[in-house]
């Protein structure tokens, strides 16, 4: 029958867990459960149930991952049905506030921890003989629109109503999410197992997107070497903007114009030209010393040149557009925001350990397409031994 010693039926546990993972707090979740299900549950119960299921989800994923890591090297790759035309894997880090676990009620030793997020997107998109959009889209050249992304831009001109034609971009069809507080070594394994389960390794076209963080590319090289590595286009924009800001401190407009020129060059795949122009700027300045401030133009220039040099092989954007591959990791950025709606908040402190890990797994299962949570709860084995006694049971007659 698939029931265990719990007081709640599997269907109720699923609803409690889903509400615990979806609401802004366990207290609100308890209220929502009462409203929707006519069932009084203590916030602590919602917390415990959510944590338990989260840890079960983690154990199940760990088991699958271990089996994947132990598979023979000759094992055939899983092929998805229907076949995946375009598989995109995107990775990004988030941050959550944690506390040391096991010290009783209250926030003990509050500290920030990174949680890693990965998105697996089955996509649909065309390939092109020529670059489908060689000119920089207006969303990147419009000061008005870039103001939400970049700080310190000059006042924008009149409202920009023109919407760029983005129909050439690939479209996401199905998404699954993985999130964990584990280290990058383990996270890479979790990602690889998920990609294998989705049949991504046998997709016709494959792309791996991330920002400039080194561990992203270590994961790509170790587990996704057959995927085209692509640096999220937004990331160099932010770098170049920061560099322009310190180089043109007295003339914001001139800084934006220089930045726009570099962004256009990157869009057109001419990153070497950007590096050349930045090096020319560098030549005009004296080399930085060890005690030069972080926001000194010379330091910023050196950092940005190093960053571009390190990522130039992942910035061939015209080629990616021709191949119908995504060039921005906006999908994973949105996913991190969805995770943060539950996990991040000035008043939220998760146990640095099981509690934090559990909410990552529950939330990732909830925001994934499909029925991960339902599938897990309906297939979890019951315990054959423990059963609770009735609270109001009658005393024995003898």
């Amino acid at each position: 029958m698939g029931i265990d010693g719990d007081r709640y039926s599997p269907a109720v546990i699923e609803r409690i867990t889903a509400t615990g993972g979806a609401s802004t707090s366990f207290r609100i979740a308890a209220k929502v459960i009462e409203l929707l299900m006519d069932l009084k549950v203590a916030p602590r119960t919602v917390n415990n149930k959510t944590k338990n299921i989260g840890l079960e989800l983690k154990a199940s994923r760990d088991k699958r991952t271990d089996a994947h890591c132990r598979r023979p090297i000759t094992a055939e790759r899983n092929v998805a049905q229907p076949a995946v035309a375009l598989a995109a894997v995107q990775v990004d880090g988030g941050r959550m506030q944690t506390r040391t676990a096991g010290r009783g009620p209250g926030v003990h030793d509050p500290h920030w921890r990174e949680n890693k997020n990965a998105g697996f997107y089955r996509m649909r998109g065309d390939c092109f003989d020529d670059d489908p959009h060689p000119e920089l889209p207006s969303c990147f050249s419009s000061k008005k629109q870039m103001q939400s992304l970049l700080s310190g831009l000059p006042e924008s001109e009149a409202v920009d109503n023109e919407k760029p034609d983005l129909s050439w971009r690939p479209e996401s069809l199905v998404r699954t999410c993985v999130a964990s507080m584990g280290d990058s070594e383990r996270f890479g394994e979790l990602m690889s197992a998920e990609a294998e389960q989705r049949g991504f390794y046998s997709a016709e076209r494959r792309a791996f997107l991330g920002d400039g963080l080194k561990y992203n590319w270590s994961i790509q090289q170790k587990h996704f070497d057959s995927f085209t590595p692509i640096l999220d286009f937004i990331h160099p924009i932010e770098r170049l903007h920061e560099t322009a800001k310190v180089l043109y401190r007295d003339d914001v407009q001139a800084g934006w114009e220089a930045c726009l020129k570099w962004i256009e060059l990157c869009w057109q795949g001419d990153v070497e030209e950007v590096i050349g122009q930045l090096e020319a700027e560098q030549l005009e300045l004296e080399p930085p010393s060890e005690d030069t401030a972080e926001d000194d133009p010379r330091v910023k220039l050196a950092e940005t040149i190093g960053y571009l040099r390190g990522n130039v092989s992942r910035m061939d954007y015209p080629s990616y557009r021709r191949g119908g591959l995504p060039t921005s990791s906006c999908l994973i950025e949105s996913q991190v925001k969805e995770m943060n709606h539950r996990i991040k908040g000035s008043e939220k402190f998760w146990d640095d350990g099981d509690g934090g890990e559990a909410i990552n797994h529950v939330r990732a299962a909830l925001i994934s397409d499909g029925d991960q949570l339902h599938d897990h709860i309906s297939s979890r084995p019951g315990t054959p031994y423990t059963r609770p006694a009735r609270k109001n049971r009658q005393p024995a007659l003898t």
Partner: protein
Amino acid sequence: MSKAVEARRAKFSPEVLAKMQELGRMISAEKYGPDGPPIKTTWAEIEDAGHEIGKLVATEYDQLVQRQHAEKYDDARCCPQCGKAVRPSVKHRDLITRDGTSDLSEPEFRCIACERSFFPSAD
């Protein structure tokens, strides 16, 4: 009738559907008398009452089917720990479901040698 209701009705035989209608008529007659609800009745009242009926029917159904299922565990079973044959008994407990608390009658196999019970309903 919406497609969702049509699909739900399609899961039951015409006889069962007729019984459900009959049940609705009986409850309405008991609650409001032969003339039906007073003119001031709000939709919220009707919906609340209907929902309560649905939950009660669901609980009765859950308990009935669970007991029918439990009767299939008549034979002795081997204790998973010591392997000795154990005769079944019944353990009653509350199970909180979507429709309220059900009285669950689980087949319990109490192994005297191991001093513990096991419940095949977990399978």
